[in-house]
C-alpha cells in the first residue's frame, strides 16, 4: 500500500499526459508545437539538380538555402568575353570619343547624387561587385550588395516573404537572386496588361 501511495503521482503522469489522450488542438497550436526538423514526407524539390545554384550566405533564424547562380546566366560576363584590354586602358583610349559604351544600360535606380557605377561595381573592373566599404562580392551573391540599402527586403527575401521560390515547396529551398527579377540598373518593374480580364464570380 505504501509503495502504491509513493508511485501514484507517477502513474497519474504516465496515464494522464500521454500523447494518446487526444485533446483538441487548434490549428495555430499544432503549428506552434511543430518545432522538430521535418522530413516533409520524403518529398524533395528537383530545382537543385536542374538549375545552377550556390549556397546562400547565413542569415539568423533562417535554415540554409540555395540561391540561383547569376554568373551561369549572365551573357556579357566576364569583360574578357568581348574585350581584350583592361578597363583602365579602355577608358584612356576612348577619352574624347562620343560613343557611349554599353549604351543599352539605362540607369534609373536612384538619383546620381547617391549612386554611380562604382557604388556597386568595383572601380578597377566592372566584373566584380563591391560593398560600399569595398569588400568584394561575387555576382552570385549580389543580394549582399542590394541588401546594404534594402535591408528589409533582404531579410524578407532570406526568410521567404519576398522573391520567388523555384521548383517546389519541398526542400531543398532554391530562390531567385534579386537581379533575376529586378534589373539592377532600373529596378522598378514596368506596368503591363494582365494575362486575363478580371471577372465576377460566375457561380
Amino acid at each position, binding site marked *: 500500500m505504501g509503495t502504491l501511495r509513493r508511485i501514484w503521482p507517477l502513474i497519474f503522469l504516465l496515464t494522464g499526459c500521454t500523447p494518446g489522450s487526444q485533446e483538441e488542438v*487548434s*490549428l495555430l497550436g*499544432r*503549428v506552434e508545437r*511543430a*518545432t*522538430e*526538423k*521535418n*522530413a*516533409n*514526407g*520524403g*518529398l*524533395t*524539390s*528537383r530545382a537543385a539538380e536542374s538549375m545552377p545554384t550556390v549556397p546562400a550566405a547565413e542569415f539568423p*533564424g*533562417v*535554415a540554409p538555402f540555395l540561391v540561383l547562380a547569376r554568373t551561369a546566366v549572365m551573357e556579357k560576363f566576364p569583360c574578357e568575353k568581348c574585350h581584350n584590354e583592361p578597363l583602365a586602358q579602355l577608358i584612356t583610349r576612348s577619352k574624347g570619343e562620343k560613343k557611349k559604351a554599353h549604351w543599352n544600360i539605362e540607369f534609373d535606380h536612384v538619383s546620381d547624387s547617391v549612386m554611380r557605377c562604382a557604388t556597386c561595381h568595383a572601380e578597377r573592373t566592372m566584373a566584380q561587385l563591391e560593398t560600399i566599404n569595398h569588400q568584394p562580392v561575387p555576382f552570385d551573391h549580389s543580394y549582399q550588395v542590394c541588401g546594404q540599402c534594402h535591408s*528589409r*527586403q533582404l*531579410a*524578407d527575401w532570406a*526568410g*521567404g*516573404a*519576398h*522573391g*520567388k*521560390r523555384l*521548383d*517546389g*515547396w*519541398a*526542400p531543398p*529551398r532554391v530562390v*531567385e537572386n534579386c537581379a533575376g*527579377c529586378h534589373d539592377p540598373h532600373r529596378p522598378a*518593374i514596368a*506596368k*503591363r*496588361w*494582365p*494575362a*486575363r*480580364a*478580371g*471577372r*465576377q*464570380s*460566375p*457561380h
Partner: protein
Amino acid sequence: MDPVQKLIQISEAQAGRPVDSTVDRRAALSILGAALSAGLGLMQTACNPLASAADREKARLDWEAFFQKNYWLMSNAEKTETVERLERLHQAQTGKTVRVSSAAAPQNVLYGYAFNVSTCRGYMDCVRACVAENNQDRRSDMRYIRIHELKKGQLSFESANDEFFHEVPAAGHFYMGTQCFHCQNPPCVDVCPTQATWMEPDGIVVVDYNWCIGCRYCMAACPYDARRFNWADPVIPEADVNLNQHYLGNRLRKKGVVEKCTFCIQRTRAGANPACVEACPTGARIFGNLLDPDSEIRWVLGNKNVFRLKEDLGTEPKFWYFMD
C-alpha cells in the same frame, strides 16, 4: 456487382466511423433509385451480344464506376482499381493516355498558403495557370482564383473591382486574391449530405466528384465563395487537357458537380508548388508545410504581421495575408 450487396459493403465500411444514420439511408435510396433508372440502360449495353467489344467494355467500366464507393472508404487496392478505370475510360474515349494519381497525403505535412498583398500587382498570371492546370470549364470561363482590385485606404470587398482590364497596377489601388482557403474547420464539409467532400490529413479539402450530387449546400455554407458549380458539361479543347491528374484534383468533371481549388493536389503531393505559386511573377504567393519549422510559410507566419479573412467565424483558414 449486385447493388444490394454493394450497399451492405458500404454500410459495413462505414460502421467503423461515427456516421449520421440518415446519411446511410439517403445514400441507400440514392443508389437504389439511380440503379433502377440508369443501371438498366448500362446493363442493356453490357449484355447486348450485338454491341462491339469496345462498347461493351465502356459499358462495363461505366457500370463499375456507377457503383464505386466513396473515395475515403476505399482500400488502397480499390483506389488503384478506380484510377486505372478512369485512365482506361479516358483512353477509350479520346485515345490519349492520362495519368490519374491516387497518391495519399504525405506524412507530417499540413499545407498552408500566404499571400503578399503588397507584392501582388494584378497580372492575373495565376488565374491563367490555374485554369490550364486544373482542367476548368472554358465555356463558362470557370476560375477558382479571383483577384480583387481594391482602392488604397480601405479593405472592402463590396467596393472592389473584380472586372478590371487595364494596365496594372493601377495608381492608387492594390490587389488581393481569394480562392479556397482550405479551412481547418471547414463549414462546407459539415453540410454535405453525401460526405462527398472532406479534409485530407494534409489539410486539403477535397471533393469526390463521383459522390457529389450537386445540391450546392457546400457553396451556400462557404463564407468565402470558394466553390464552383458545373451547370453544364465542362468543355476543354482536347489539346489543352492536362493529362497529369489526381483523383481528388484536376481529373475531368461532369455536369452537376461542385469543384474548387485543391492546392493543386496532383502537384503538391509530389513536392511541387501549386500552379498559381509557380506562375506568380512577383513572388506574392507562398506555399509550404506548416509543420516544417524551416519552411517559408512558417517564416512568414513567425515574422510578418499576418491576417486571415473572417477569422471570427472560427473556420481557421490555412491561408494568410500579409503586407511588406
